[in-house]
């Protein structure tokens, strides 16, 4: 098992024929992801990368039974693309697009209420279940199959963590890039919960950053319900107050937004908190040993 995506996922690409969509669709196909087609309004009926192009997500669901969609649509139209995927009944919607206006995402959040779709992102690297499906923009070779789940707000920092985990002799069950925007579809806590319930995941790495209260929420949940060791890192211990550090959501407003505050709560909730990003892999190894001996 694994979470969110696997070899049976039937993936479509929204924004299929654009340059980003084309490049990453090719990479995903090469990885072995079951890409069954794509959507570009007005280009329905054509073939692209040997796969059918549809005008609407609904057609893709009806004709090729798509159940996962990855979105590379530009920011101005991305919220609409997410809602279209939800309307068509897509189970897992992964929005890569960076720069979607907050108000658009507020409407998306409302629109998704009561629907069965799960949104991952936006502004995220996607989701990978190594050896089965890569639905994202991450370099696939870094992620080797194994038993560690990763939840992260950041792209390259996820690759860094995965690389350390793999080189430490462990592998990855599923890595979930939840995104660095102020409003995202799946919170840290929800992603951790998915991995906690996954029988193939034995340990979880939780990577957060300054801004918002999602890591604290996840930590409290872990304290109550956690059954597996969790290693945590928060990027931005040296970030100044009031400055946006690259990601739209990475900004220290109040005192709860700081890395220090989050790390404190995480440690209090039993998470193995690392100060240095160089120690994520080795700490996971130690945490697994400690859990086995407990």
């Amino acid at each position, binding site marked *: 098992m694994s979470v969110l995506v696997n070899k049976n996922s039937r993936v479509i690409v929204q924004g299929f024929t654009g340059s980003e969509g084309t490049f990453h669709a090719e990479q995903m196909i090469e990885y072995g992801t079951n890409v069954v087609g794509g959507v570009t309004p007005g280009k329905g009926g054509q073939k692209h990368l040997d796969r059918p192009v549809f005008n609407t997500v609904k057609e893709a669901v009806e004709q090729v039974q798509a159940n996962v969609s990855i979105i590379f649509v530009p920011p101005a139209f991305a919220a609409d693309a997410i809602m279209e995927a939800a309307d068509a009944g897509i189970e897992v919607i992964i929005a890569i697009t960076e720069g979607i206006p907050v108000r658009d995402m507020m409407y998306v959040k409302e629109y998704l209420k009561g629907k069965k779709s799960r949104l991952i992102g936006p502004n995220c690297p996607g989701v990978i279940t190594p050896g089965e499906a890569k639905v994202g923009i991450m370099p696939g070779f870094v992620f080797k199959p194994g038993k560690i789940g990763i939840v992260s707000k950041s792209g390259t920092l996820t690759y860094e963590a995965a690389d350390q985990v793999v080189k430490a002799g462990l592998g990855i069950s599923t890595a979930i890039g939840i995104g660095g925007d102020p*409003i995202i579809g799946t919170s840290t806590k929800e992603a951790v919960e998915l991995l906690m319930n996954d029988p193939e995941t034995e340990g979880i790495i939780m990577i957060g950053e*300054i801004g918002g209260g999602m890591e604290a929420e996840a930590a409290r949940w872990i304290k109550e319900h956690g059954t597996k060791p969790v290693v945590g890192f928060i990027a*931005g*211990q*040296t970030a100044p107050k009031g400055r946006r550090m*690259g990601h*739209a959501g990475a900004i220290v407003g109040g005192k709860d937004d700081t890395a220090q505050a989050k790390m404190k709560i995480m440690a209090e909730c039993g998470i193995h908190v690392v100060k240095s990003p160089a120690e994520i892999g080795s700490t996971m190894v130690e945490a697994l040993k400690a859990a086995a001996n407990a």
Partner: protein
Amino acid sequence: MNIHEYQAKDILKRYGVRVQEGIVADTPAKAVEAARQLQEETGTEIFVIKAQIHAGGRGKGGGVKLAKSINEVEEVAGKILGMQLVTPQTGPEGKKVHKVLVAQDVYYPGPSEPKEYYVSILLDRATGQDVIIASSEGGMDIEEVAEKHPDKIVKEFIDTRVGLRDFQARKVAFALGLEGDAMKEMVKFIKNLYRAYVDIEASLVEINPALKTSDNKIIAVDAKVNLEDNALFRHPDLAALRDITEEDPAEVEAGEYGLNYVKLDGNVGCMVNGAGLAMATMDMIKLSGGEPANFLDVGGKANAQTVEAGFRIILKDPNVKAILINIFGGIVRCDRVANGVVEAYKNIGEINVPIIVRLQGTNAEEAAKIIDESGLKVYSAITLQEAAEKVQKAVKGELA
């Protein structure tokens, strides 16, 4: 994006928000002219001269002063214009004042006592909804109020689908202890503020203080409006309000190259791909005994041009004693990035600080070889731990 008080007030007025009237001026002579015009329009006898910089706490730094008559305006404005204003939010070097707002007096005597309130609207990230935050403790820093008098803070969450309802604005006004005309005025004030907030896609509208005048009007005495960067493409008129003189010149230049740069006060510069890894790299520099000199995300494509631009921007900072380049090459190949680094170095010529290049991912070994054989003052690393150790040596001056 931040804008000035005078710009914020101009916008809010268009939505029917009552503001303390004022006219902006960039010389003492123009300030006098502004005062004369303001006197004609509003009848005010006293003038408030307010420095226009992108930072709060201006009063504490001497950036807000009273001219008790029109005769004092020139002198007061002359003192503020051109000053290097230091406030709790500017940092020790302060910010140069290029403009002042000559504003009317709104604390005039009348049938009731004037009283200051606090009103703001922003996104509550936990719920994904907008929230109105209000307090009877106006004029104070809201974080301080939250800490000392949490009971004096009113929060009202707004349903995204239906927007702010009248009863909610009434709830807030009554909770602030207002009654009669002042309550009705506050309801109007909040509703108009919300209309503006939604329409201009602000990330924050903060009125502190919102004054109940002696004749029961509600007036925005100060106004802070932050616009959401990702929505500016829909608002070209608002995007045009950007004042780059308020920004760090190196940050402006970095933006032109598509680099995301934030200047800090440390001694180790860094250049990284990805925002999360960039923050993590800064943290690692600190743990290695250095202080990060900047945040710099070169984004998805780290090539010779972006690396060279990054070098030039980091090297403008005389405090930088070493530079760490940290690239996790996924789809970008490390050997290409390494060649880019060498090429950029040669284009710049002599660089007098050690450079540590940590390249991990596709073709990392080849990349390390390219760096080591370049003959330049560049040191390679593959793991993050190695990079940290080399930074530590560089900080101590031990990197040969």
